[in-house]
């Protein structure tokens, strides 16, 4: 596949259409919606709150639990089997690792912050969309965190690197698409998530990370604007 444009007409360094909203779940302590193209993530944060059973409590630092869940009707037409799966456990775990590098867990020893990420609609890049949404929801919940987190998937489609893959691009065969989800702390450029599915050379990987970093800067701007908008709207009411 050698062409100057991608399957959906985007440029190679262009993300899908992004939308972010804060405070959509009124009963939660903090919540956010983040949409990248057709992938929609809703995140709700509860806590810090009491943690039971008691043996899970950690007196040295607080605990954050992330729950990733795709809704049954969210996939590509096939019903997604509801309930926890090996895949959703893993993605919950990597999300938690990515976010715990910015959240100050020392502030709520023995307690827990619960992050629930739900997907009513998915089209590739769900873990990245989920991380973006969860970071916003944590900030909305007033949790102490040194920065937000932005995430994006960069991949090698055919023989070119492309930012923010869609499902069609990800599913391409011969050659198989290489998919690299990654997350960054925008202020420091620190990498907090890096996974890969496929084969890629070292040089291309370094280039992909650079592309991802630039895309995440733009995502971060959208996140910041969304957070400010919620409270500015309040101000003008």
């Amino acid at each position, binding site marked *: 596949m050698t062409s100057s444009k991608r399957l959906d007409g985007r440029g190679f360094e262009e993300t899908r259409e992004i939308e972010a909203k804060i405070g959509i779940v009124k009963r939660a*302590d903090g919540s956010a919606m983040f949409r990248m193209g057709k992938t929609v993530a809703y995140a709700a944060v509860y806590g810090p709150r009491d943690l039971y059973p008691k043996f899970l409590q950690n007196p040295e630092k607080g605990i954050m639990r992330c729950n990733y869940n795709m809704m049954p009707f969210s996939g590509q037409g096939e019903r997604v089997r509801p309930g926890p799966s090996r895949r959703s456990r893993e993605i919950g775990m990597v999300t938690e690792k990515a976010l715990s590098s*910015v959240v100050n867990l020392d502030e709520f020893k023995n307690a827990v912050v619960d992050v629930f990420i739900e997907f009513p609609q998915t089209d590739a890049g769900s873990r990245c969309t989920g991380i973006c949404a969860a970071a916003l929801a944590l900030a909305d919940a007033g949790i102490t965190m*040194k920065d937000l987190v932005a995430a994006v998937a960069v991949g090698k489609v055919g023989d070119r690197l492309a930012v923010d893959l869609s499902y069609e691009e990800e599913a391409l065969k011969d050659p198989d698409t290489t998919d690299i989800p990654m997350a960054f702390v925008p202020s420091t450029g620190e990498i907090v998530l890096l996974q890969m599915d496929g084969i890629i050379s070292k040089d291309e990987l370094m280039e992909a990370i650079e592309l991802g970093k630039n895309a995440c800067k733009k995502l971060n701007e959208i996140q910041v604007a969304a957070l400010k908008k919620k*409270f500015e709207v309040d101000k003008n009411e």
Partner: protein
Amino acid sequence: MTETKVKENEIVVPGEEIVSGMGYLPAYGTYRDGEMIRANKLGIVHVDGRAIKLVPLSGNYLPKRGDVMIGKVIDVTYSGWIVDTNSAYRAMLGLKEATSDFIRKGADLTKYFNFGDYLVAKILNVTSQNLIDLTMDGPGLRKLDTGRIIRVNPNKVPRIIGKEGSMVSMIKAETNCRITVGQNGVIWVSGNPKEELIAVSMIRKIERESHISGLTERIKAEIENAKKGESQ
């Protein structure tokens, strides 16, 4: 060279740069990152002398020494009571701090405070592990009987109380209700049922509109309206 990137009273988000340079000190809600001061919470910037601090816009209650709060008795033990504080941590009210009565060994402590009772109590101490000690020894600290309990965003409590209690005393005077505002966002309102409702709706209004100027006048007008509507 010190340069402030954000004006006073502006909203900042976690990670946002507030100041570059060493001219200011980071206080609550901010941290130093090399030459910069960044926010680590969602809040409004305040410059207090040389210190930069944030007034948070959201978040659960974090217990602080000296706060007067309203809690609910959730357990009775040998040596005192366990109290829910509307935060992630429960508090302990010891016998000695609860009453000056002589209590015989093995006496029934529920005679003093029973399950589900609401108390106005002061936080004596908070440890690094957030173990909380309460006391009932102080003016206005008591068990609450009749009335209603409402919960508000703890970050709005200073606005509900107002400058030197101006806001809450105005609501008290206008509605003839007795009101106690706990720092943990739990509020007790007691009075004539209809006036109680007015007071509660006013508190909700303050919670929603606390950042808009001229709040006191608007609340006053609103109470007049509500009272008129009722008498007709």
